[in-house]
């Protein structure tokens, strides 16, 4: 039996999204969290989105921070706008991948998972969101070019 994938690249170049409604809800929730964290400085994930670029410097370059903030917010918004589509294009697929990757790393930081050992000691219920995001990202990476 052929493996079933969440994303299929069609011959016309579009990417078919084969995610059930409950899966879509999970994806939309993660995208919305990234979009919210970008614009809300009090959001739990906000600080995770702004790691310094040069650890030896006291402060990051404010212009670069602004550029990053704008681009991240744009990706998250585009991902949210296309989250319910049956087919997505390459630009939307890239927005999905980057937004969900940011969600994955933010969830990792929020859970205090900084190395493999700290991931291994977590219960499956504690890392359920991390595992789900990894699965979606793994599938997305197959079709993003």
């Amino acid at each position: 039996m052929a493996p079933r994938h969440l994303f299929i690249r069609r011959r016309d170049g579009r990417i078919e999204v084969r995610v059930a409604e409950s899966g879509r809800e999970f994806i939309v929730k993660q995208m919305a969290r990234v979009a919210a964290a970008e614009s809300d400085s009090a959001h739990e994930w906000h600080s995770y989105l702004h790691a310094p670029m040069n650890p030896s410097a006291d402060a990051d370059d404010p212009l670069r921070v602004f550029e990053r903030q704008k681009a991240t917010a744009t990706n998250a918004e585009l991902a949210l706008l296309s989250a319910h589509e049956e087919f997505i294009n390459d630009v939307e697929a890239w927005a999905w991948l980057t937004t969900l990757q940011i969600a994955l790393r933010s969830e990792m930081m929020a859970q205090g998972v900084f190395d493999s050992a700290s991931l291994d000691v977590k219960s499956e219920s504690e890392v359920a969101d991390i595992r789900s995001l990894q699965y979606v990202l793994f599938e997305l990476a197959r079709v993003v070019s």
Partner: protein
Amino acid sequence: MPQLQPLVRPSTDNQTSSSDAAATAKAWNVVVWDDPVTPMPVVVVILRKIFAFPNAKATRLMMTVHHEGRAIVWSGQRDRAEAYCVQLHVAGLQATIEQDS
């Protein structure tokens, strides 16, 4: 009709000291750091997309990140290094810049 003569300025060579040249000679590196959750194919896709690396090079760099904890993925001028670093952050990878020692 005005004469259209090329404007000749003094050469900039004698305005640049050798110490300036030495200070800018050291390249800035873009470093990607390992984390315990990012799937390996995602790192490869992001490196291919941002740097236009062929698949083999992106995969080799991803394996370096995985095994050594970090990899220098690009070296060059500081402003370009910062711009690449921003793109990696936007894509959700942990990246920093550092100057060659």
